C-alpha cells in the first residue's frame, strides 16, 4: 500500500507550518479584484454567496406556501400584509406564482449550481493539486451568465410573474399571460452557465491530473463531479432547444407543442424531461461525491468499495438519460413505452443503493468523529434512503397511477432534493468552510443546526407522503378539510426547518469574525486540499504537491501537542499488518 509513496515534500504546505500571511482572500483587494477575478476559489465563493441568496428567496417562498396551506381555503396569501403587495390579484393566482417561482428558483438557480459550481469550483483544482481550472475565463463567464439568468428570473417576477410551474408544460405555458418568455430566456441562459461549468471540469479533470493521479486514485468527489459534468454538457442543450421551441410556439405559433396549431403537448413533456430527468442527477450526483468524502474523512477510514462507488456514479449518469418517461406514466403514452420506462427506472435504483451500502461499510470499524459535517452526512444517508425507497412506489406502474402528481411525489422529491442535495451541500459547506475561510465555526452550533434541519425536515415532509397516498393532489391552493391536520403538521415542520437553516447561516457567518485560525488539515483528510494552508494561497500550492492515496488515513495522526492532524513521515510508518490499534503517539 505504501509502495511508491512519496513524502509530501513542500515545507510551506505542510500542516503544522505557520499559515502564510497572504491567501486568496487577501492577495488583492477591492471590489474590482473580485469582479474580474479569474481565481477559481473566488469564483467558487461568489457562487456560494449567489446560490445562498437564491436559496433564501426560494426558501421564503416555500414558507409562504406552507403558511398559506394552514387552512383549507388558504390563509397566508389572503392576509392583509400579503394583499398589500399583491394587490387585487386573485389569491389562487398569487399562490400559483409563488409555487412556480419557488420551484424554478430552487431548481435553476440553487440546486443545479449549488454543489458543482460553488463547492466544485473551489475544490476541483485543489483536489487535483492544480493552480486553477483549465479555462479560468470561461469559468468567470459562467458565473456572470448565472447572474444574468438570475436577473431574467427577477425581471419575470417583477413584470407579471410566472404561473406555469417550473416545468413550463404546454399548452399552459404557450397561452399563459405571465412572463413566460422572460423566465424561459433566464433558464436558457442558466443552461449555458451550467454547460460552461461542466465543460471546464471535464477538461480540467482529463488534462490536469498530476502525475501519479490515475483515474482510480482520484477523490470520489472528482468522480461525481466528472459524471455530473458529462450530464451537464450532454443534456442541457436539449433544454435550450426545448425552451427556444417553446418561445417560438408562443410568439410565432409554429405548431409543435400547442394543439391549437396542430402541435402535440406531450412532445413538450418528452423534450423537457429528456433534460430534466438527467438534471435530477446533476442535482444529486455531486451530493453523493460530497457524502463519500465526508463519511470517509470523518470515519478516518478508507472508502469502502471505491471502484463500485466510482462506477456507480458513471452508471447513474448514463442510465439517467434513459428514464425520462417515468414522469409521464399517466400522460397516455403507449403501454409498451410506459413499461420499458418503468423497467429502466428500476435499473437506476441499483447504483444509488450501492452507494448507501458502501457508505455504511465505510463507517463500520472506523474511528468516527461526530463533527458537524459527519452529522449532516448521517442525516443525509437517513433521509436519502427514504427518498430513494419511496421512488420504488413511483417507479411501479400500478401504484404510480394513484400516486402520480400527488403530495407523495412532492414528499419523494423533497426527500431527495432537500434531504439529499441540500443536506449534502450544507455538510459540504461545513466540511470545507475552515478550508475556504480559514475560520472554524462553533461545533455545537453546527450540530444544533443539523438536528433542527433533521427534525424540521421530517415533520415537514413525512406527513406529505400520507397526504399523497390519501389522494391530495399537488399544486393546490385550496384543499378538502379532511387534509388539514397533516397540512398543518407539515407547515409547522417547515418553520422548524427554516429555523435550522438560519441557525446554520448564523453559525457560519459568526465564525468569520472569530480570531482563531483553522489549521490546514482540520479533519485529518488525505485529499490534496488538506495539504495546502487554510485559506489556500492564491496559487493553491507553492510546489506541485505529491500525489498520495486520497483515502489512506494511516499516516495522518493527531498531534495532541499542537492540537492538529499531521502527516507522519512515510519511513516511520508501519506496514498495515503491524499497525497498533492506536497509532497516535
Amino acid at each position, binding site marked *: 500500500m505504501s509502495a511508491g509513496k512519496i513524502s509530501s515534500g513542500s515545507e510551506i504546505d505542510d500542516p503544522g507550518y505557520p499559515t502564510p500571511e497572504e491567501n486568496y482572500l487577501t492577495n488583492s483587494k477591492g471590489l474590482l479584484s473580485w469582479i474580474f477575478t479569474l481565481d477559481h476559489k473566488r469564483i467558487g465563493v461568489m457562487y456560494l454567496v449567489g446560490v445562498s441568496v437564491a436559496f433564501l428567496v426560494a426558501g421564503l417562498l416555500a414558507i409562504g406556501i406552507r403558511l398559506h396551506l394552514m387552512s383549507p381555503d388558504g390563509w397566508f396569501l389572503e392576509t392583509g400584509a400579503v394583499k398589500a403587495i399583491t394587490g387585487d390579484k386573485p389569491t389562487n393566482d398569487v399562490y400559483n406564482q409563488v409555487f412556480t417561482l419557488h420551484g424554478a428558483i430552487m431548481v435553476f438557480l440553487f440546486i443545479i449550481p449549488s454543489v458543482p459550481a460553488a463547492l466544485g469550483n473551489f475544490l476541483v483544482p485543489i483536489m487535483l493539486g492544480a493552480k486553477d481550472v483549465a479555462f479560468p475565463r470561461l469559468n468567470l463567464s459562467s458565473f456572470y451568465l448565472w447572474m444574468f439568468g438570475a436577473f431574467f428570473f427577477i425581471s419575470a417576477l417583477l413584470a407579471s410573474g410566472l404561473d406555469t410551474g417550473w416545468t413550463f408544460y404546454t399548452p399552459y405555458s404557450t397561452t399563459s399571460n405571465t412572463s413566460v418568455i422572460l423566465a424561459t430566456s433566464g433558464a436558457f441562459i442558466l443552461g449555458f452557465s451550467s454547460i460552461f461549468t461542466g465543460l471546464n471540469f471535464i477538461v480540467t479533470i482529463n488534462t490536469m491530473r498530476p502525475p501519479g493521479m490515475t483515474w482510480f486514485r482520484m477523490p470520489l468527489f472528482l468522480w461525481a463531479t466528472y459524471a455530473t459534468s458529462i450530464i451537464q454538457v450532454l443534456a442541457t442543450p436539449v433544454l435550450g432547444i426545448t425552451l427556444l421551441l417553446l418561445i417560438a410556439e408562443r410568439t410565432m405559433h409554429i405548431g409543435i407543442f400547442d394543439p391549437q396549431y396542430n402541435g402535440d403537448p406531450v412532445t413538450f413533456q418528452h423534450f423537457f424531461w429528456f433534460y430534466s430527468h438527467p438534471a435530477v442527477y446533476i442535482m444529486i450526483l455531486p451530493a453523493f461525491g460530497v457524502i463519500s468524502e465526508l463519511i470517509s474523512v470523518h470515519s478516518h477510514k478508507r472508502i469502502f468499495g471505491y471502484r463500485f462507488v466510482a462506477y456507480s456514479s458513471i452508471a447513474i449518469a448514463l442510465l439517467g438519460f434513459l428514464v425520462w418517461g417515468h414522469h409521464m406514466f399517466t400522460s397516455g403514452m403507449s403501454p409498451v413505452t410506459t413499461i420499458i420506462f*418503468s423497467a429502466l427506472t428500476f435499473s437506476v435504483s441499483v447504483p444509488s443503493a450501492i452507494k448507501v451500502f458502501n457508505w455504511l461499510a465505510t463507517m463500520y470499524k472506523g474511528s468516527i468523529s461526530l463533527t458537524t459535517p459527519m452529522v449532516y452526512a448521517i442525516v443525509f444517508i437517513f433521509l436519502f*434512503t427514504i427518498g430513494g425507497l419511496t421512488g420504488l412506489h413511483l*417507479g411501479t406502474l400500478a401504484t404510480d397511477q394513484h400516486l402520480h402528481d400527488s403530495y407523495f411525489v412532492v414528499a419523494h422529491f423533497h426527500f431527495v432534493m432537500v434531504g439529499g442535495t441540500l443536506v449534502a451541500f450544507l455538510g459540504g459547506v461545513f466540511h470545507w468552510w475552515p478550508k475556504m475561510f480559514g475560520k472554524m465555526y462553533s461545533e455545537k452550533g453546527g450540530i444544533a443546526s443539523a438536528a433542527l434541519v433533521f427534525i424540521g425536515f421530517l415533520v415537514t415532509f413525512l406527513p406529505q407522503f400520507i397526504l399523497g397516498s390519501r389522494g391530495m393532489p399537488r399544486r393546490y391552493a385550496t384543499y378538502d378539510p379532511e387534509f388539514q391536520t397533516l397540512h398543518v403538521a407539515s407547515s409547522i415542520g417547515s418553520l422548524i426547518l427554516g429555523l435550522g437553516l438560519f441557525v446554520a447561516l448564523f453559525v457560519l457567518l459568526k465564525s468569520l469574525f472569530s480570531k482563531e485560525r483553522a489549521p490546514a488539515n482540520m479533519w485529518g483528510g488525505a485529499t490534496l486540499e488538506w495539504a495546502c494552508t487554510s485559506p489556500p494561497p492564491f496559487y493553491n500550492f507553492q510546489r506541485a504537491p505529491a500525489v498520495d492515496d486520497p483515502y489512506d488515513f494511516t499516516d495522518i495522526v493527531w498531534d495532541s501537542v499542537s492540537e492538529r492532524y499531521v502527516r507522519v513521515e512515510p519511513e516511520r510508518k508501519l506496514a498495515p499488518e503491524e499497525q497498533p490499534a492506536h497509532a*497516535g503517539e
Partner: protein
Amino acid sequence: MFSVPNLLADEASGLFFPESASTFSQQSDTVFYAITIVCVLFFIPITIALFGFASKYKKAKGEQAESQVDHNTKLELIWSVGPSFLLIAMFYFGARGFMEQRTIPEGAYEIGVKATRWNWSFNYGGTTQNSELHVVKDEPTKLVMTADTVIHSLFIPAFRVKKDVVPGRFNYMWFRATKASEKLSDEELAARKQVYKDASESWSYEKEGYTEDGYAFYDLYCTEYCGKDHSMMQTVVVVHETREELEAWVEEKGKRQPGVDPVTYGRKLYESRGCKSCHSLEPGVKLAGPSYAGSFGTSRELTDGSSVTMDYGYIKESIEDPKAKIVKGYAGVNMPSYKGMLSTDDIYCLAQFIKSLNPNAAKQEAEEADSGAAVAETGTEADVTSASE
C-alpha cells in the same frame, strides 16, 4: 386473471389510503403495501447500521480506525445483485396491474369527458351532460376524455386511477366500481334541501357529504396543474347499484322535469354546465366573464364600441356564438360555444334565471313583448309549453 392475495389492503379507509372502491384499488394497495414492507425491511437494518456504527465506532480524535478494509467483492456483488430480484418482482406486479388498467373490456359503459378550465363535463349520450360522474357498480365504465385548451388530469382517489386529459387527443380510462353510493331517504333529502331553499343558498356537497340527488360520493380531482382554479376543479363520483338506476338518473338529468320552474332549472344549469366558473352572481364580482347580477335588460357596451340590450336573443347568441358580441373589458376571454349542447328550453331557463337576478327586471317588463317574439321564432315557446305540461 390477476390476483394477488389481498393481505393488507383494507376494505375500509386505513392510514395510507382513502376508501377503496374499485377493483383496481385493492390491487394497487396490495402492491403498495408489499413495496412498503420491502422498503421497511431494508430501511430498518440501514438505520440500525447507520446509528449503531455512529455510536459504536465513535472514537476520540486521533484514534486509528480498527480496520482499513477497503473492499469485499463478494459482499458488494451480493448487495448489488441481490435486491435486483426484488426490483424485478416490483416491476412485474406493477406492470401487470398497469396493463389491466390499460386493457379496456368490451361492452364497457362509455361516458365522454370534457375538461375545461375549471370544470368537468360528463357526456352520457343524448342531451345529458352533467358535472357529476355517475357510474354503475360492478360494471366496467370507460371514460373517453379530452380537454379544450390546457392539460388536465382526472383522478379518483377511491378508485386509484388517474389519466391526463390532453387537448387535441383522446385519452381513455376504465375502472370497475365495487361499492354503490349510499342514498339518503327522500324525506331526509327533502328536509335538507328545504334548509338551503329557506336560506336561498346553493347546495354544499362538502358540508352535506351527499349530492343534491341524495347520493354519497367519492371525490374526483384535477391533478394536472391548469391555472387559477386548479384546486377548485373538483367534482363527485356516484356509484349506482344497478344499470337501470343509472339510466333513470341520466334520463332525468337530460331534461327539465314537470313542475320545475324555469328559474330553478336555469340555476341548476348554471351550476352544472360550467357557467358558474366564469360568471358570478354577485354584483361587481368579476370572474373570467361578466357577472350575471343585475344585467338582464340593461344595455351592454361591446368591445367594438357599439352596444346591445341583454335580452333573450342576446343571451342565446352569446351561449351559442360567444365571440359574436363581446362585452367591453372581456376581449380575449375564450368562452367555448355551447351550440347543440343546450336545448332552446335550457337557454330559455338560463335566461329566466339571469333575469331573476335583476331586481329591476320588472321595469323592463314592457320590453318583454319584443323578446318574447324573438324567442318564439326559435321555437322555444313550444318547448316551454310542452315541458311545463
